[in-house]
């Protein structure tokens, strides 16, 4: 199984390619990036692995960190965990079965759909929403970026986060059980590999965000796997297995898919990091009091918008819709796949918010620093130009009170002095 590394960082910066422009720094939703000595740096205690810096970098200096394809060779029996978004990656392939079964042509022995875990989570969520004393609204925890955003930045909502396992972790356990059952092999001979559409899922697995008992042995990028799959001629793929997940499980690939599984009460689905943050801000302010369930996806369009995908998110979305329509023709019932899934079978610990924005652990010192911060902010020009290496004048003032920057780094301050 994967070794949990709490300090794992999902983003790598190539110092040679980084030009020290301020694009990524300006886009970072948690103000985790600073430009120092002409190069971007990430404070990983604040990073939520949203991938905005990877998406926005004009010089391709930022890349996601993932395992190399040959990691699978360490195991006798190799199973690929396929996210529903993967089925929308190929322009001319309409049958998801072709994509799934082609996994066997690139070195895997079997594959398992994450959408089956999604079917279970849908059923569990419906059950939770029927219960008493549930937080209002209940917030989905399937997107790890949104979970970390809440834990770091919107603490007041930590109790609203679902406390059951998300689809990926459930599917990983099921895939392992199936592999053991099919082959009779020992646990250490079975390798389960997730093919990730985004940096955040990789980080959530490696950091053990949901559970430290991760049933996954490695995380590959959808990019690498798709490029490999493209070299497989369709005529060589033998379609032995059909998809089992329901049309609604596949819907989780796109924004609004998760809530389409819920019939009770009022739901809201937001996608794209800025939209997600707007919704979280309004929720925390107590503005959206009539919503019962909230689905959040940090990537535009949902998981189809992940930075490790090869296909344009909108094309991918339209393909997923067609695949779902076809899936509807031969199966509509999710209950058969799910059995009697109960929330208590998939229980997680309560979420613990981490305040990464506090100025000091000691209240008296934090108070003094906030005082300094307030007066410094008034002195600074308020251009938010980023030339000092911080995303805003206020963030720069924060760095100064925490001894991470000096006021002389402010260009306006310097020229005024001259």
């Amino acid at each position, binding site marked *: 199984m994967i070794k949990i590394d709490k300090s794992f960082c999902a983003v790598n910066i190539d110092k040679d390619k980084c030009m020290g422009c301020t694009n990524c720094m300006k886009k970072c939703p948690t103000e985790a990036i600073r430009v120092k000595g002409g190069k971007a740096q990430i404070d990983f205690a604040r990073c939520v692995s949203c991938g905005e810096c990877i998406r926005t970098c004009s010089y391709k200096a930022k890349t996601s960190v993932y395992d190399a394809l040959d990691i699978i060779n360490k195991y006798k029996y190799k199973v690929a965990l396929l996210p529903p978004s993967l089925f929308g990656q190929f322009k001319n392939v309409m049958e998801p079965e072709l994509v799934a079964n082609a996994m066997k042509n690139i070195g895997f022995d079997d594959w398992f759909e994450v959408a089956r875990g999604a079917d279970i989570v849908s059923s569990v969520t419906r059950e939770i929403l029927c219960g008493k004393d549930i937080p209002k609204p209940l917030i989905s925890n399937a997107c790890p970026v949104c979970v970390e955003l809440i834990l770091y930045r919107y603490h*007041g909502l*930590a109790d609203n986060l679902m406390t059951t396992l998300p689809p990926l972790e459930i599917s990983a356990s099921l895939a392992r059980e199936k592999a053991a059952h099919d082959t009779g092999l020992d646990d250490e001979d079975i390798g389960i590999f997730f093919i990730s559409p985004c940096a955040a899922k990789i980080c959530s697995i490696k950091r053990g965000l949901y559970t430290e008992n991760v049933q996954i042995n490695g995380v590959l990028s959808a990019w690498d796997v798709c490029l490999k799959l493209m070299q497989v001629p369709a005529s060589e793929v033998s379609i032995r297995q059909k998809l089992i997940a329901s049309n609604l499980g596949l819907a989780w690939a796109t924004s609004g898919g998760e809530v389409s599984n819920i019939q009770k009460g009022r739901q809201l689905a937001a996608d794209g990091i800025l939209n997600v943050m707007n919704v979280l801000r309004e929720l925390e*302010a107590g503005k959206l009091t009539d919503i019962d369930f909230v689905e959040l996806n940090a990537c535009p369009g949902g998981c189809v918008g992940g930075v490790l995908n090869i296909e344009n998110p909108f094309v991918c979305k339209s393909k997923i819709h067609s695949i779902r329509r076809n899936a509807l023709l031969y199966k509509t019932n999710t209950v058969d796949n799910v059995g009697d899934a109960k929330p208590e079978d998939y229980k997680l610990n309560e979420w613990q918010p981490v*305040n990464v924005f*506090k100025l000091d652990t000691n*209240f008296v010192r*934090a108070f003094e620093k*906030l*005082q300094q911060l307030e007066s410094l902010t008034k002195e600074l020009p308020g251009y938010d130009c980023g030339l000092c290496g911080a995303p805003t004048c206020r963030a720069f003032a924060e760095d100064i009170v925490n001894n991470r920057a000096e006021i002389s780094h402010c260009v306006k301050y310097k020229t005024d002095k001259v």
Partner: protein
Amino acid sequence: MDVIVWSSEVDGKNFEGAGFASQTTRSKLKQLGLNSDLIRRVAIAMYEGEINMVIHADGGVATTEIFPDRITITLRDTGKGIENIELAMKEGYSTASDSVRDLGFGAGMGLPNMKKYADEMIIESEVGKGTTVCLIFRLV
């Protein structure tokens, strides 16, 4: 240590903009590392106050003061004032116009909620002159 103060103007007739003052306050309280339940109470009560000023008084000024032992939020407007404070404090009592109610506001829960979330609330109001609501949250 003495006090940290900041004020924001609350724009009247702008429901979208209401919430800016409480949002600013919230992010500063987070920087102080205060517990999330307290921050939530402050932010919700302050937001209700902002909405009240938008609905009834064409805006006003929201001031936050942080002392070592307490936070006080003062919401001051020069609107029409409250005729009967006791009645205004009743849950469900509202003098909001139909157009405001159509927007989902003015349910008569503003002041009662503010009182519920704050540790102490003081209202001073004079008809025709304006209203000042002071919310106190204790830190110890």
